[in-house]
C-alpha cells in the first residue's frame, strides 16, 4: 500500500492506494497554527481501517519549508561567498550577514587564486562572534572544483551547528542561483529538521515502521535523511504533486496542457510527448531564484472564488479574492456563483441558488441577457483568460534559445493536443475550456484529490553531473563533493562508466536503473593538435512508469 499526503494552503488531502486502486481518500482543513498536528491527525484517520504492516511507504508533500520562506520565518545565515573575477555580486539583499572572501576558480576548475587561510580564520571568528549558527559557503565555479568550499566548511565544523556547501545543491552552473539555493537550504535547515524529528517521533508512537518520503519540486521524492540535508528541495512540492496527480490519473502521450484549478489560483503545466516540462533554471520562490529542480508551473490569480467584475463593458475574473462565493455568504460575486446558477455545483440548495442568481444578475452583462446567459458568459471569459495565458507561455517556451543547428532546424515546437484538469471547479469549467480551445478536455477520476494520489505514486529522482576537462586534468561531480584528477587520455566511455559506478557506490542504484540524459564531448585543442576531451554528462535515475489507475 502506498500512502500519499498533500499539505496545501487551506486543505490537506490524503489517499491510500494499492495495486492501482484508490482504497481511501481524505480531505481536511488545515490548522495554519499547527501544521504538524494537522498532518498527523489526518494521517491517523486515513490509516484507521488498515493494518500498518501493509503499508509500503508514506510520501508527504509539505509546505513547511515553503511557508517558512514566504513568511520569512527563517534562521539568520552567515553567507560566505567568493565571487572572484567577473560580476561583483553584492548579495546583501539576501542576507545581512554576507562575508566576501578572496580566492577564485575558473571555468575549467583551476584554482586561479587560492583561498587565504588567515581570511578563513578571521571570517570564522566573526561568524562565531556574531552568534551565527548557520553558514552557507559558495564560490563561483564550485561545481567545477569543490576544494575551496570544502576547505572553508571543514574549518567551520564544530564552530557552528550546520554548514551547507554550494556544490552540493546542484550540478548546474549559475552562481547567484547557487548562492540563493545554498542560503535558503541553511535558512530552513532547523525549521525542517525540527519537523522531521517530530515526524519520526510521531511515527514511532503510531508504530509505523515504514519509510517516510518527502516530495520534491520536481515531482519525485527523497527519503527523510536526504530531505534533512536538502530541505530546500521540499519547496514548491504542491504544484509538483498536482502534476504527478494528473499524470497518474490519465494516460497522456501527446503534448498537453495541464491545469489545477483551485479556489484562488490556477496552476498551469505543460507536457511534451507526455513528459512534463521543467523550469529552465530552477524554482523561483519569494523572489529567490534557485537551482532547485522543479516542474515548470505558472500560477495565475484565477479560481472558483475569484471576484467577477465589469470593467469598461468587459467582464474580468480575478485576480483578487474577497472571500467565499456570494452564494455561501461571501461579499462579492464569484465564478463559483456562475457555476451554481448553471447547476454545475453539487450539494447546493434553493437558498444558494437564489443568492447566486442575485449575484450573477448584478453583473448585468451582456445587456438584456438572462441570468443563465450571464453565468455562461462568465465561465467562457474564465476559459478565455486561461487560454490567453497558456498562449503567451507557449510562445515563450517555443521561442527559447537553442544552441545547435540541429535543434534550431529540426526541434519540434510544443503544440498541445489535449487539456487535463483537476481541482474543485474542474468539471464545471471543462466544457467551456473545450469550446474556447477547440481541444478535448479531460477531467480524470479523483480530480479533487489528485495531489495526494500524485504524492503516493511518486518515485525517487536523483541526478549526478560530471564535468571532465582532460586538458587540465580535472574531473568533478559536485553533487557528491567529488573533484579528482584524470589523464589527458580519459575518454567519454570512461566518464560514463565512472558516473554509473558513483551511482552504485553512493546511492546503491544499479546501472540499469540509471540513464544519461545530457551528453557532450568536445575535443580541446592546444595549438593545432588535440589536447584531450571536454566531457559533460548528466545522469539520472530512470523515471519509472507512473502507475495509471486501474479503475474509476
Amino acid at each position, binding site marked *: 500500500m502506498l500512502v500519499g499526503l498533500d499539505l496545501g494552503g487551506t486543505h490537506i488531502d490524503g489517499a491510500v492506494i494499492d495495486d492501482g486502486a484508490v482504497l481511501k481518500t481524505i480531505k481536511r482543513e488545515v490548522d495554519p497554527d499547527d501544521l504538524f498536528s494537522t498532518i498527523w491527525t489526518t494521517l491517523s484517520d486515513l490509516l484507521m481501517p488498515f493494518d500498518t504492516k501493509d503499508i509500503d511507504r508514506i510520501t508527504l508533500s509539505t509546505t513547511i519549508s515553503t511557508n517558512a520562506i514566504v513568511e520569512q520565518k527563517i534562521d539568520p545565515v552567515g553567507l560566505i561567498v567568493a565571487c572572484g*573575477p*567577473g560580476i561583483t555580486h553584492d548579495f546583501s539583499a539576501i542576507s545581512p550577514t554576507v562575508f566576501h572572501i578572496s580566492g577564485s576558480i575558473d571555468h575549467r576548475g583551476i584554482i586561479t587564486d587560492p583561498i587565504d587561510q588567515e581570511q578563513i580564520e578571521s571570517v570564522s571568528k566573526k561568524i562565531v562572534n556574531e552568534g551565527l549558527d548557520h553558514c552557507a559557503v559558495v564560490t563561483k565555479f564550485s561545481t567545477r572544483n569543490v576544494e575551496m568550499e570544502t576547505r572553508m566548511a571543514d574549518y567551520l565544523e564544530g564552530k557552528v551547528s550546520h554548514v551547507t556547501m554550494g556544490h552540493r545543491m546542484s550540478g548546474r552552473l549559475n552562481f547567484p542561483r547557487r548562492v540563493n539555493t545554498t542560503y535558503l537550504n541553511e535558512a530552513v535547515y532547523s525549521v525542517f529538521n525540527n519537523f522531521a524529528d517530530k515526524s519520526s517521533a510521531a511515527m514511532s508512537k503510531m508504530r509505523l515502521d515504514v519509510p517516510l518520503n518527502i516530495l520534491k519540486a520536481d515531482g519525485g521524492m527523497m527519503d527523510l535523511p536526504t530531505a534533512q540535508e536538502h530541505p530546500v528541495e521540499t519547496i514548491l512540492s504542491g504544484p509538483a504533486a498536482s502534476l504527478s496527480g494528473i499524470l497518474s490519473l490519465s494516460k497522456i502521450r501527446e503534448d498537453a496542457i495541464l491545469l489545477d484549478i483551485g479556489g484562488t489560483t490556477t496552476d498551469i503545466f505543460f507536457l511534451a510527448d507526455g513528459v512534463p516540462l521543467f523550469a529552465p533554471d530552477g524554482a523561483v520562490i519569494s523572489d529567490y531564484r534557485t537551482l532547485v529542480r522543479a516542474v515548470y508551473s505558472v500560477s495565475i490569480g484565477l479560481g472558483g472564488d475569484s471576484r467577477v467584475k465589469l470593467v469598461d463593458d468587459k467582464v474580468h475574473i480575478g485576480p483578487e479574492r474577497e472571500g467565499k462565493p456570494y452564494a455561501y455568504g461571501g461579499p462579492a460575486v464569484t465564478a463559483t456563483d456562475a457555476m451554481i446558477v448553471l447547476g454545475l455545483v453539487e450539494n447546493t440548495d434553493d437558498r444558494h441558488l437564489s443568492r447566486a442568481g442575485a449575484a450573477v444578475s448584478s453583473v448585468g452583462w451582456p445587456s438584456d441577457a438572462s441570468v443563465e446567459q450571464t453565468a455562461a458568459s462568465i465561465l467562457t471569459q474564465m476559459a478565455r483568460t486561461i487560454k490567453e495565458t497558456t498562449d503567451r507561455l507557449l510562445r515563450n517556451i517555443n521561442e527559447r534559445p537553442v544552441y545547435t543547428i540541429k535543434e*534550431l532546424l529540426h526541434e519540434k515546437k510544443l503544440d498541445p493536443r489535449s487539456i487535463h484538469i483537476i481541482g474543485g471547479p474542474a468539471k464545471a469549467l471543462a466544457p467551456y475550456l473545450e469550446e474556447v480551445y477547440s481541444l478535448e478536455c479531460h477531467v480524470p477520476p479523483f480530480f479533487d484529490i489528485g495531489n495526494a494520489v500524485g504524492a503516493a505514486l511518486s518515485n525517487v529522482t536523483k541526478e549526478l553531473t560530471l564535468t571532465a576537462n582532460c586538458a587540465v586534468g580535472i574531473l568533478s561531480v559536485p553533487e557528491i563533493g567529488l573533484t579528482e584528477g584524470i589523464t589527458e587520455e580519459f575518454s567519454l566511455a570512461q566518464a560514463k562508466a565512472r558516473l554509473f559506478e558513483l551511482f552504485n557506490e553512493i546511492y546503491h542504484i544499479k546501472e540499469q536503473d540509471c540513464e544519461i540524459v545530457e551528453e557532450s564531448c568536445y575535443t580541446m585543442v592546444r595549438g593545432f593538435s588535440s589536447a584531450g576531451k571536454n566531457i559533460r554528462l548528466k545522469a539520472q535515475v530512470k523515471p519509472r512508469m507512473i502507475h495509471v489507475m486501474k479503475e474509476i
Partner: protein
Amino acid sequence: MESDKKLALVFFPAFDWAISPTHPEREERLLYTQDQLIEEGIGDIENITMLRSDIAQSKDVEKVHFCVPDVESRVTESHLIAAGSAIRCADAVMKGGFDSAFALIRPPGHHAHTVVYGDRGFCIINNEAIMIEHMRKENPDLKVAIVDTDCHHGDGTSDIYWNDSNTLFISLHQDGRTLYPGTGSVDEIGGPSGCGYTINIPLPPGTSDEGYLYVIRHAVLPILDEFKPDIVINSAGQDNHYSDPLTNMNVSAQGYAQLNHLLHPDIAVLEGGYSIEGALPYVNLGILLAMADLDFSGVKEPDYCRERLQQSRQIDEYIRMLTSRVMENWKNRKTIREQLYENKSIVTSTKRIYYDTDNITERQNRKYILCDRCGGLEIIESDSDTHHSILAVTIGRGSCERCVNKGYSLYKNASGRYTGVYLHDKVNDSYLSKKM
C-alpha cells in the same frame, strides 16, 4: 544588479559545426563563454533578454553578395543561422523595443566580400552587411556606421561598402604588413561615391588597451559625431586579446569593455577571437555588461597583469601620428575626392582575392561607371580557379533611370564568355541571375 538599458542577446554557439576538428573555428569555440555567462547568471539579469536565433533566407544573402554559382551551393545552414541571428538583433533594436543587441554568434563574416566563391578567413557571408541591408528594407536611407575592432582588417565589409557614403566603415586592426589579410592601409579610403567613408586604422603589433582607447577617443568618436549615423555597429572580433594565438596585440577584457562603453554600439556582432579558454569568456562578459550599462569593473582574466601588457613609448607616438593622419583624411575627404575622381566617367580597379580556407584564387576587375545625376553603376568581372567567370552588375540605391536602364541592358546583352551573369537592382529591390 540592473539598469534601464534593455539589451537583447542572441547567442548561437553552433555546438554542432566546425570547419575541421582542430580548426580554430570549431564546435567548442563558445563553450567556455557559455559556461562563464551561465555561471554569472546573465539569464536572470532583468535588463538582459536572451532571444532565439533565426535563419536567414537566400534572398537576404542576395541583397549583399553574388554567390557563385548561387547561394545554395556556397552557403551552409550554419552561416545562414549566424546571419539570421544578426538579423534578429537588428529587429530587436529597430522594432523590438531594445536599446541595443549583441549577436554572440559563429561562424564570423567580416572577410566575406561582395563576390563569394568560398570560405576565406573562416567567413563565407558577411553577417553585418546582411543585417544592415535587412534594416534598409524598411529604412532605405538608414545611415550606418560600422566600427570593426577585430584584429584582422575587415576586408570583406570594406569591399561591400567601398562605394557607399551612407555606410561609414571604420576598421581598427593589426597593421596588414604583419597580419592576414594584408590589406587595410590608411590610404584605402573608398570608391568614387564613397570616398572618405572607408577609414582604416592599422595599429602596430603590441598595441594595448591605451592605444585602442586613444584611437576611439581621438578618431572614432569625433568622426561618428560628425557623420551622425542612425545606427552604430561594432564588429566585435576578440582576437586583439593578449592571449590570442593568431595575432600579436595586447588588449584585455577590461579594454574591450571600456571600448564598448565609449562606443555605445547599437548592435555588436562577434567576429574572430580564438583564445577560447583564456580570453573569450571574459571579453564577452565585459562587452555584454558594458552594452547593458552594468558594472564591469570586476571583469578580469585570471592571468591579467597590467605591467606586462603596457605598450611602448614608440607605439604611443606612432598611434598619435596615425590618428592625426586619419583625421586629416576625414576632414579633407571632399578635396581628396575631387582630386581623385573629378571629371572622370569610369573608374576601374583590379584585385586578386585569395580564399585561404578553401584555397581558391579570384581575379576581379571592378568598374564604376560614374553619373552626374546619381551614384552610377558598379560592374564586376571576375573569374576564379573554380572555372567560373562571371559578370555582376549592381545598380545602386538612388540610381537615375538612365543608369537603371543601362544596368539591365548590360545584364541582358552579356556576352557568352561568362559562366554566369548577375544583376542586383537596389532601386527596385530585384536580383536576377542567369547561367550561360
